[in-house]
């Protein structure tokens, strides 16, 4: 089991630690509801250093990124990032990721911890053009500082005007006394804020200064449990739950990051999915009664016919109702459609809704 550079701090804060993607990670400090609410109302900090980072450089860097990534990286300018995914050879998804253009001929790919080895092997297998690839995952830490007060609370730590960094833009600058930190206006919560990429040797200083600066704003450390409820309230896909090697990006609603403006892995099959349509769609639903859907529960119609499977579900801490996502045939995917979730012995009615579940 690997530790992040902050494991000792999490333990000293009384976090409940769990194994996640081969890392010993904090799942909860005070409680999932209060941590969730802290991010929705104020500002919270996640150690997500388990995430993987690949640096792709050199004259062939763009060619390699374009080959493996579904989105069009040629549209990126220095200081901008884009959400994307790695298509596989069979119409599914190797992983989803964020692509940063660090400078000319240099891209940073940020991938899921559970997929680091799989992604690395996949990208390497397509690197016939010999772009320079470095796996920085073990050397870099990532803090997500999220919430509506993140900008104000963190401004004293940097010379960059944080309020001027637009969504999915970033700056490489000073932060908490460390130079050359990536300050990225991205996140997985829907409540605004930043993600900070730095070296493992720098992260403890940054963590401590972030908590000093945030003290007057009610800042708290946030565990992976609240990270999951926050992302699910926004309907963000979680790899391994909502998308995987067998789900088409067109089933999962990822057509918006699939750009046929260039040649990339398996684009022919994905174009077919786009043009001919797919047999199922990822939907978002709310329970009509008090009940909590969970991943793996069956989705049925009113006559108990199987429609599909719930991929993610929880009690929404913000809304106090059961919410979930899952795959159903397209005719049941329209918002307002009535479906049923098999919860133990009961078939509980639910309604398909538009994302996000949570609206500010």
């Amino acid at each position: 089991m690997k530790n992040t550079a902050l494991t000792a701090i999490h333990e000293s804060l009384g976090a409940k630690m769990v194994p996640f993607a081969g890392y010993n990670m904090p799942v909860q400090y005070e409680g999932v509801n209060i941590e969730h609410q802290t991010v929705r109302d104020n500002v919270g900090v996640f150690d997500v250093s388990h995430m993987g980072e690949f640096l792709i450089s050199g004259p062939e860097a763009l060619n390699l990124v374009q080959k493996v990534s579904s989105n069009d990286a040629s549209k990126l300018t220095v200081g901008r990032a884009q959400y994307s995914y790695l298509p596989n050879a069979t119409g599914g998804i190797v992983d989803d990721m964020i692509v940063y253009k660090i400078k000319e001929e240099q891209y940073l790919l940020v991938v899921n911890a559970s997929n680091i080895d799989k992604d690395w092997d996949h990208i390497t297998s397509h690197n016939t053009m010999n772009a320079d690839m470095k796996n920085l995952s073990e050397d870099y830490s990532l803090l997500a500082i999220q919430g509506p007060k993140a900008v104000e609370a963190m401004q004293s730590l940097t010379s960059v005007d944080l309020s001027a960094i637009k969504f999915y833009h970033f700056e490489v600058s000073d932060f908490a006394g460390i130079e050359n930190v990536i300050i990225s206006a991205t996140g997985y919560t829907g409540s605004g804020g930043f993600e900070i990429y730095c070296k493992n040797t720098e992260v403890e200083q940054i963590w401590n200064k972030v908590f000093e600066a945030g003290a007057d704003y009610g800042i708290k450390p946030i565990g992976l449990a609240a990270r999951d409820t926050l992302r699910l309230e926004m309907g963000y896909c979680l790899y391994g739950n909502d998308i995987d090697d067998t789900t088409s990006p067109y089933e999962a609603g990822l057509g918006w990051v699939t750009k046929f403006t260039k040649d990339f892995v398996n684009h022919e099959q994905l174009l077919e999915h786009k043009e001919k349509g797919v047999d199922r769609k990822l939907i978002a639903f709310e329970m009509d009664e008090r009940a909590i859907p969970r991943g793996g529960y069956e989705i049925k119609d009113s006559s108990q016919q199987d429609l599909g499977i719930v991929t993610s579900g929880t009690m929404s801490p913000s809304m106090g109702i059961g919410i979930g996502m899952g795959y159903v045939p397209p005719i049941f995917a329209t918002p307002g459609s009535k479906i049923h979730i098999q919860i133990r012995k009961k078939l509980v009615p639910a309604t398909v809704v538009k994302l996000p579940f949570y609206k500010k």
Partner: protein
Amino acid sequence: MNIPSELKYTKDHEWIKIEGDVATIGITDFAQSELGDIVYVEVETVDETLDQEEVFGTVEAVKTVSDLFLPLTGEITDFNEKLEDEPELVNSDPYGDGWMIKMKFTDATQVDGLLSADAYKELVG
């Protein structure tokens, strides 16, 4: 970890308070802490007679769901209706206002098979 000495326990992390032929049942401090924020306690077996080890309900936390097993054979007579609106009582007061059901048990010899506080303490380390 709070493990009151006057109660009985099961390996499923339930506590049992015996008064005559009536047992009051809830989940332990250890169990509530492992589950995290509890958002729903579902018991739809009131007035039913079930065997020891049968599922009498479920407890849902934000992140997980867990079955509740009946520690003794008998009839479930009461559900703590306060939990309908305040399931968080199971977190804040697991041995008091967070109790879950009362039952009339039919086989007193089963009581001898329950864990003492000391035995339960050993179980959860």
